[in-house]
């Protein structure tokens, strides 16, 4: 049976009607068209679907719709409102944090939550906080380094100000 649920999504009041046990991931992707959150496993292991629920990083594939009633949700789309890229996203791209990109939205959302708790995280703090989000491409080293560049713990290796429109994928 469908019910109506209200929550704040990426800063905007949002109302969705759906079954109470609908997965938040499906609501975001199908009903609201926010396809930035990815499904990698459907059982909360890979973290590609991570969103912030009241500022906590959670796997949206494990969250039933009824649980978000009255909550505040931030997805990857909420980290770059309009065309403004956050520094985290810019550094992540420049320093090699993203390869295939399938884990990247969930990874960046997770790191956003990490930085709220640890503004200048050590590697062991990263290991503890981010270990629920899997990346199969990078070996994590460039993700560590991106966070370290962002938080002033390391010099940048990427060339700044490079052009961005070099692919015909759009």
């Amino acid at each position: 049976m469908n019910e109506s649920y209200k929550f704040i999504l990426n800063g905007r009041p949002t109302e969705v009607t759906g079954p109470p046990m609908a997965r938040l991931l499906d609501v975001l992707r199908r009903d609201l068209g926010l396809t930035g959150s990815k499904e990698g496993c459907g059982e909360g292991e890979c973290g590609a679907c991570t969103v912030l629920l009241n500022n906590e990083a959670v796997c949206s594939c494990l969250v039933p719709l009824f649980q978000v009633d009255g909550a505040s949700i931030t997805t990857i789309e909420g980290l770059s409102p309009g065309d403004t890229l956050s520094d985290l996203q810019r550094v992540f791209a420049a320093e090699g944090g993203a390869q295939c990109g399938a884990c990247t939205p969930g990874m960046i959302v997770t790191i956003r939550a990490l930085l709220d708790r640890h503004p200048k995280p050590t590697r062991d703090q990263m290991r503890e906080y981010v270990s629920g989000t899997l990346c199969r491409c990078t070996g994590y080293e460039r993700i560590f380094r991106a966070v370290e560049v962002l938080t002033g713990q390391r010099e940048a290796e990427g060339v700044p100000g490079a052009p961005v429109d070099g692919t015909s994928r759009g």
Partner: protein
Amino acid sequence: MDHQNAVGRSLLRPDGLAKVTGTALYLDDLTEGFCFHGVTVRSPHASALIASIDSSSVSDPEVKVLTAKDVGPRNSIHLIQDDWPILADRQVNHVGEPVALVVAPTLARAQSAARAVKVAYDVLRPVLSLDEALVGDPRTNGGLNVLSECKIAHGNIYQGFAQADVIVDGEYSTGHQEHAYIEPHGVIATPTLDAASAFKGVDIVGSLQCPYYVHKALTYLFGLGDEAIRVRQSVTGGGFGGKEDYPDMIAAHAALLARACGKQVKILYERQEDIIATTKRHPSRVRHKTGVKRDGTLVAMDIDVLLDGGAYVTLSPVVLSRCVLHSAGAYACPNVRIRGRVLATNTAPNGAFRGFGAPQSLFAVERQMDKIARTLGLDPFAVRRRNAYREGDTTPTGQVLKESVSAVTVLERAKEATRFTERHAQNEKARQSRKDDGKALAGIGLSLFWHGSGFTGNGERRLMSKGAVRLRPDLKIEVLTSSTDFGQGTEGIFRQIVADACGVTIDDVVVHIPDTAEVPDSGPTVASRTVMVVGGLLSRAGAKLAQTLCSFAARHDGLAPAAVALRGGFFETERGQTPFRTMAKKYLIVHGPLVAEAQFEPTPGSTFDEATYRGDAYAAYGWGANVVEVEVDPDTFITSVVNLTTVSDVGHVVHPVMCAGQVEGGTLQALAWGYLEEIKMKDGRYLNDRLQTYLIPTMADTPDMQTILIENPTTHGPFGAKGVGELPMDGGAPALLQAIENATGISLARIPATPERILQAGRAGQ
């Protein structure tokens, strides 16, 4: 002119911003709501005869069910041998083998109909491991079921052993490995219909590595011309070899369903289905018998390689080829004999996985080198240093290594960067005198390895790949290849190579998505060939395009052709500079479209005989050394990798950050294969077919990494570049096992080195 080259700089990857903002569109992001959905009915048995398939209880009128009889006469994936059925006919040979396909307007209706398809089986006895395969296979009347075989002979093995002071035997085994790309497989098939709504072809878009493989498979399946099939790559969330051959299968399924229902059909695998159905790394068993002098010099190597191919041939002959060609390691030895065989089993076909057979045989030879060192009382560095290839050495196929040989360099850099010899000796000493205080045991391990860039043997000569660049009406130079980017950064690297080859800026270059209707066949995206081989084609095509434009500019200005050069985005003459875009625009107005193409050119005098395995196996080799530092809990034998140092010679670094990213990501996969990742099976069924149970490394399992890139250029790649994609997969596991041995005194010959295996090996050694 003081413009900067694009090659060698860590420029922002072109797809970077789309990926970090979540706007990159992967397959599942494309079609919510408006396509039909395909679902596959799979065998629950490893070996069985299909008695009957009954779909009479499927009552949904919009559902279609297809079985082998609906496929047509060409019911196989057209790859190397046509033995891999698109839908099983009469017999199934592995759990998860496709038996029937179902299509419906919604996924839920397709799944419900698939459950209503009843298949009856007469179950047979399966062959589930190399051990069982060696006993014999019912499919070959109890004889060995050999899918592929090859032999290499170099020098005289008997004379070699006669010269040896010591003979060392060893046997080494490795298991399955799952690719675990984060985006599972998926394909969308759109039928093209004629005026009478009859099927005349199909467009495929998918998460895939090799668009022309899919194209070839579908033209064969339907017996249609090249124009009838179009294959495009969607943004692909990881591959590692796992999306080399299997997309042929899913595309064939989706295309058959699209033909049957006349609608656009999507097939997207869930994670569990992806793990059950798709290919894995070949399990291996390698035997070594090595003759050595007392000082550690190799005089004879006798190597026997067995790979578990799974149920069908698929890519196994080529995997075996790379496996045996790397099996003597990065070491010179005058007398070598190698035999390789792939045996069939009743598991899903094993296929391409980063390294493609080389990690298995390099694991074995590196462990064997450790055993030799232990036997002779040498340290692991010394025995490797003594035998490592130098320029001018000859490989087991008789190939003389004429250039770009860095085995000694990478080994010494790795030693210096980690104080390996000293710390290895310290750990040995500490272990022998340690008290049982429960403290973690420290260990350090080293490996040396090589990896051939590009297709094996005559592969490149057979492919004769093409790459092209085109001057578009908007004055962008567009790169046209079938090389796919599934994370490596191909699109960015091609732009860098072409910008420098043409003499324009990076902004002037764009990359066309791989699309068989628009790009030439530059071969599959595999075998560490993208930068060296396809990048080389683009470098030549770019230079040709620049030359055409320079000749035009010279005529335009009344100068000799040699008086004009295109550099940094300007045509330069002694009179001054003209912007690239200005002159390019004039060219297009006067002459119309401009395309420059280059095709692979074999190196003169370079040959490889596939019957005798003599000749030049690869045009160039990458070289690597790994140092792995571990801590092992003395009570639980749980291993933590605490530091990783890699030294890699890649010829020339096109993009330092992305190159390091290849090395780091690949090496973590290699370490995980060495101690963490394992497919467990019961009656041919995977027990850990989900990410909850098949474990891959998290950030918490990941060491700090020191990544050292060395540049020893080859004449066979653009700017001297060699391949880097697979090299990092080769040395992690053996270095890790040497480190565990250094920490615990327990020597393992089998991976993964789980706590149970370490305990078992420790008990056996007592």
